[in-house]
């Protein structure tokens, strides 16, 4: 897969150097995350890339509308608004991928605690009614 990605990137650089330059800079954080993310499937890099790509669509359209030249690409890269938006989106993606598991875990724990409490009440009632083990181990 890696060689295919390399081939595609090489082809892009050879065939559309302005696009490659623009995307390379705008998706810089995503490329950096892909290099640093060691988890299988690189979930953080994936999220950062998706957010970065969403923010890069408009500048890419502007490059192609303006003739798809290296100066146009350089001009777009020189626009701090374009670069800031793309990198801010990448940062938002990173933030989301870090915060979402924590929120999900908190939710799951709350559900488990509530279920355990309900089960303990049911257990105590059964044990009392049927003369069964009233303690139930270390639950």
């Amino acid at each position, binding site marked *: 897969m890696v060689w295919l990605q390399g081939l595609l990137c090489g082809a892009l650089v050879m065939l559309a150097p302005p696009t490659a330059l623009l995307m390379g800079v705008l998706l810089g954080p995503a490329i950096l995350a892909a290099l640093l993310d060691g988890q299988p499937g690189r*979930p*953080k890099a*994936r*999220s950062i*890339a*998706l*957010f970065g*790509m*969403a*923010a890069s*669509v*408009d500048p890419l*359209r502007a490059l192609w509308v303006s003739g798809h030249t290296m100066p146009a690409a350089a001009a777009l890269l020189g626009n701090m608004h374009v670069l800031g938006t793309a990198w801010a*989106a990448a940062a938002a*993606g990173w933030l*989301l*991928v870090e*915060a*979402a*598991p*924590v*929120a*999900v*875990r908190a*939710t*799951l*724990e709350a559900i*488990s605690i509530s*279920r*355990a409490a309900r*089960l*303990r009440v*049911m*257990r105590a009632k*059964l*044990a*009392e*009614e*049927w*003369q*069964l*083990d009233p303690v*139930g*181990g*270390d*639950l």
Partner: protein
Amino acid sequence: MANPAPPRPGVALIADRYAVEMGRLLPPVGGLAAFAATDQTTGRTDLMAIRVQRHLPPRPRTLQALSTPIDGLLTPLAHGVTVAQSGSSEEACYVICLAPPGPNLLARPRPWPEAELLECVLRPAAQVLEQLRARGVTHRGIRIENVFQSRPGQPVVLGSAWAAPPTVGQPALFEPPYSAMCLLAGRGEGSIADDVYSLGVLLLCLGLDQAPLAHLDDAAIVRRKLEVGSYAALLGDQRLPPVIGDLVRGMLAEDPEHRPSPGLLLDPASARSRRVAARPPRRAQRAIPMAGVEIWDARSLAQALAVEPEAGVHALTSGAVIQWLRRSLGDALLAARLEDLVRHRALDSLPSDTNGDATLVMRAIAMIDPLAPLCWRGVLLWPDGIGTALAAAQATDADVSLRLQELIALELAGNWAAVRPERCDFAVVRAEARQHHAWLQLSGTGGGEARLCYLLNPLLPCSSKLMGGHWVIRLPELLLALEEAAGRADRKHVQPVDGNIAAFIAARSERRLDNELMALAGGAPDDEACMAQIRILAQLQSRHHKQALPGLAAWLAEQAGPVLATWRNRDSRASITERLQVLAHAGFLAPMLALVGDPVARDTDAREAQWASAELGRIDAELGQIAAGAGSRASLASRLGQEIAAGVGLAMLAIVLAAVAFG
């Protein structure tokens, strides 16, 4: 047997008919207290009531056989239980029989003339004995103070001997030596020949001017009779009228088969002519010391071995007895048989086997003197007296009771009979011995010695402490006694069916309740024992006592804790406990049994308890899963969070692309 009736002041009723007048004490009969009695139906007043002792039960077969009166005999009319004393709640058993028509023969001056002895004593007594023989029973109480005469010249009347086991109250003088040497309560019913012997002693006493052997104790009398023969021992150097002398000589023969039958005695002339040449005991050339006395003949040797079994073992195994028999007594055949016996003992068992030694002595005695009773470790008895001996020993002598149990457990009566088959019905004795052993072997609360004792003594009262002063012979009376005991017993800790009562029920219910009684055995779970107890008493109530027993029912309800605890559902348990109290108040045990033992309800309870248990297991498993699932939840949360982030990113990309495409 009648149920106790409410007594009038000073008067207690037997069989709802015979009034026992506690205030009018009569001379004791064979050591038993006697009271005046009247028949309230006919107004007859010439009756007496003999009070039975707890450990010496009356003779059931004789009481039944004598339901039709016999002239010349104080026949029993009824027997039953009533209060022991006026105003007391304690009960006693009485045998009602005719009162003596006059004083006993001790009151008459002696010696009696021959004609009066024949006409007033021998003929009437022989007639009575002949009728007893025809009915298959014996008297075993003929002695001078138990034979009565209304006035001189009238036929004598034989007294009562029904209110205690045979020969209780009978002195050794009037008993054949082989009966006198036995346990007092172990002499058995015997045979009519034993009554002929007692009648012979009576004739002899009346024919002499002084009582024979008055200076000797019972053991010495037995020894003397064995040494020289009963006739010679009793007569000594005195003389009897010739006819009486000849008759008495035959009647006092040591061998019962040599004594004339009662029928023959009805004709004294022919009885006199049928003289059996009773050989005097063969006397040895020199004595052998045994049990502190010098033995000169085989019968005395057998008796000494019986009385001193330990010394007997030594004398037998050392060869001293065999040598004495061969050289001094000149009985080589008996010596050879004994030698074989001792040799077999040495080969068959270990020297330390004390039962083997005791068996050797027992067989040796039976071999030396086939007329001798069964002798086991110093306990002498006739096999048909085992039941009464056991009853007496249980109350008075634990050591003898233990030896009797050994005797039964080893089926020694059969062993003893096998040595002297010509003297008894070997098959019957052996079968009875096996039956007794089987009963003794019955395990459990209602088995063993107590049950055997009740089985062998149908009129023996229940000896449980719970009976208090009650005299309980039959099962219906047991429930009444327990109802009263319920008022004073510690209901929480004392069971209404203790071991003794269980044995009594087992013996009187003819094995119908054996399964329930087995459940009462030690080791059974409390709830099963409790259920068995309720089941037994409920069955007894439904069979024998239709009235309510609220005290006993409340007692059982108190004891029902273990059974109630087996109901798993709390609400069911509470409901059953409440209903049980209501039923106990009503006093009927069958509905209580139906409530606590309801199989459908129990099945439902068990099934639901099983479901509850499974449900509890499921809950425990789920709680365990929750407790152990923190790691997996964290992993899931991480994965879900990343997927959510990716999903949001993808959605934003899609929205932007759509906006670019359409806008």
